[in-house]
């Protein structure tokens, strides 16, 4: 049996619309400091490799990995940066531990969107400079509008269903201290709002928040040395459907990268049966409301075109058979750029350790986490977790 990989510590700082009181490295130090305390490891002696997840133009620094090692305890130690979502960093940690190169790996990801004054222009810099960026589209989220329209056209999901997702998540968020954008929102509130990017109103688009999240992973033997509340990372998967230079090849209305990532993660977790019965909760992508429904279908937690019906029946509510985004998801917590995936992972780990607080899902033993890197990428990552 290959070495099992467990999560032995989590730490976070932020989840607020802005964090002017900390330098971005100070924020990284805060989250890693808490994660190492949670795992009771000494980063300078016990952690073998440090993985950081950030992107140059989110940070405003041209080789931003230079600033990674110091705050997370990786100075003069094996440290590297994965330019992608924090869950991709967790995939690297999984491989590092399975390969035997490391026993204990720390993964940090952060986002400080509040410091990006020209966020829209930075988003457009990720677009294909030849065929898409020059078009006067007005808002980079038009790509999400195209996918939302295509999804609704294919499955018959309606604007009311999107509104139901937004209302569910923003209300769930009221119970979560890390959810600055939560509100007692009703479907009618959403339906009465004008379209921002058809078919999405502003309620259907998650706002941004600053946060840093650090996760400490360890092999099974190493984990025993530090803690007894381990959450097992049974499976991890990640995939890219097409490049941002060839968005025209994308299957509109689908997120094939999440389907491929799910198949990879489920295979590693040995989930032979139909996955929908396997989980007690799911923390999935919802930076655009329709993405929660699409994610559930790509994760095979609902049959194709069925997610919005199950949603109507309350199947994904906090008390339902499969609570989805009990934390409030990105719609309530905000989007933390490359830390968004780790925000989902953090919430799932706390649930499986019974430490989620007011929005705790009783008796949660197994969870699935899924994230997409957002516009204009078609890259997703999926993790399968089980309580220790």
């Amino acid at each position, binding site marked *: 049996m290959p070495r099992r990989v467990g999560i032995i510590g989590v730490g976070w700082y932020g989840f607020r619309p802005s964090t002017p009181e900390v330098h971005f490295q100070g924020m990284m130090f805060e989250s890693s400091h808490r994660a190492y305390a949670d795992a009771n490891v000494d980063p300078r002696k016990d952690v073998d490799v440090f993985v950081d997840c950030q992107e140059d133009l989110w940070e405003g620094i041209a080789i931003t*990995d230079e600033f990674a090692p110091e705050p997370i305890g*990786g100075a003069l130690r094996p440290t590297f*940066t994965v330019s992608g979502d924090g869950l991709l960093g967790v995939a690297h940690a999984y491989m590092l531990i399975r390969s035997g190169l490391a026993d204990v790996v720390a993964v940090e990801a952060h986002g400080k969107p509040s410091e990006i004054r020209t966020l829209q222009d930075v988003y457009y810099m990720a677009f294909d400079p030849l065929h898409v960026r020059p078009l006067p589209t007005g808002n980079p989220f038009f790509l999400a509008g195209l996918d939302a329209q295509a999804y609704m056209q294919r499955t018959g999901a309606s604007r009311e269903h999107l509104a139901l997702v937004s209302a569910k998540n923003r209300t769930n968020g009221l119970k979560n201290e890390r959810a600055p954008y939560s509100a007692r929102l009703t479907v009618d509130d959403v339906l009465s709002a004008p379209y921002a990017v058809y078919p999405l109103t502003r309620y259907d688009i998650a706002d941004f928040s600053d946060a840093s999240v650090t996760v400490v992973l360890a092999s099974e033997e190493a984990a025993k040395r530090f803690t007894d509340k381990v959450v097992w990372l049974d499976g991890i998967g990640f995939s890219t459907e097409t490049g941002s230079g060839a968005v025209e090849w994308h299957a509109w209305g689908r997120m094939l990268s999440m389907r491929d990532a799910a198949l990879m993660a489920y295979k590693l977790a040995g989930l032979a049966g139909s996955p929908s019965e396997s989980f007690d909760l799911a923390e999935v992508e919802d930076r655009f409301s329709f993405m929660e429904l699409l994610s559930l279908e790509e994760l095979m937690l609902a049959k194709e075109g069925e997610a919005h019906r199950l949603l109507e029946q309350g199947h994904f509510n906090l008390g339902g058979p499969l609570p989805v985004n009990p934390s409030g998801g990105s719609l309530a917590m905000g989007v933390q750029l490359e830390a968004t995936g780790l925000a989902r992972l953090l919430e799932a780990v706390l649930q499986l350790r019974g430490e989620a607080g007011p929005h705790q899902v009783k008796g949660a033993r197994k969870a699935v986490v899924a994230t997409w890197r957002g516009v204009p990428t078609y890259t997703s990552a999926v993790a399968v977790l089980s309580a220790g």
Partner: protein
Amino acid sequence: MVTNLFVKDRVAIVGAGITTFMRRALETPRELAWEAARMALDQAGLTLKDVDCVVIGSAPDTFDGVHLKGEYLADGSGAIRKPMTRVYVGGGTGVFVPVSAWWHVASGLCKTVLAVGEEKMSPAHPHPQYVFRYIWDPIIHRPLEPNLIWIFAMEMRRYMAKCGAKKEDIALVSVKNKRNALDNPAAQVAANITVDDVLKSEVLVWPVQELDVSPVTDGAAALVITSENVARQVTDSPVWIEGVGFTLDNQHWENRELAFPRYLNYAARMAYRMAGIERPWKEIDVAEPYDPFDYKELHHIEGLMLARPCEAWKLLKEGYFNRDGELPTSPSGGLLGVGNPIAAAGVMKVAELFWQLRYEAGKRQVKRPVHRAVANAWGDLMQAGTVIVLGN
């Protein structure tokens, strides 16, 4: 740190591909990645269907002017409907891409990995070097309007002061590498030059002059890295990845001795320990130390423990590192001769060692028999060391 690492399934390089290195390319970045990756697959006798994971390396997005550049290079690097990540340790990325591909295979997650390094520096105007204005600490350093060559010049000056190396001693590296590059079809600035030419070239930031520096380059390079059983089916001369090592120091380069790269030394020890090498200066047959500047090759030879600190420039004078020397370094022609498309430069160096260890380097083939080789890349603010040890 795991020391006696038992890996049941060894990891091998089975193919390498490279584009010509150019000051300005017509191709877009994703097309450059495609050209290099397709050549690597052809050389290995494989097709994209055989690939199950992709690792991309590319340095500052501010060169190509495309944010989330890993996503932009994805389809060009063969990552359509495949697991793909972009790894990034500044200039050290080139060697780090095959290092990361190692644990993609060794973990059992992937059997065949395409490792692609790409860099297109020409889109940035007025000059690609202007991008390096943004690598510095935004508050403590940027107000001084620093440009990249300052930090290299300061390190070179410190090396010269501490080790007693003169500019004419150091210039021999540029002479050696640009001459080696004459036999490399990818070379951008191969030339027969003399030490005098170097000493008469335009002074940029004393002690760094024009011919001490590698050029700005557009280019891509790629490797196909597989598990042992795939390698056995694909080629009868696989090149094994026997050791990987990487270390990052803190970002305060102005708080450390610049004459010796301690971070690279730690990375080298990590890789040598994994490869079971105790006396690298004896057991390594050929090396590709990172040479964005001529003095840096000497600096890295000492960091890689291929020569004692401050001894490298003396051995250089005796021809110790020439292609027919005792320990040939940069037989490819290095960054100084072939070119420096940052993330692809390191992959080019690993590709060179792949060809050397298979005795396929043609006119560049070193004279002595070769069994074990080491390549390193360097990056960030004098802080990243990435090392790979290969064997045939």
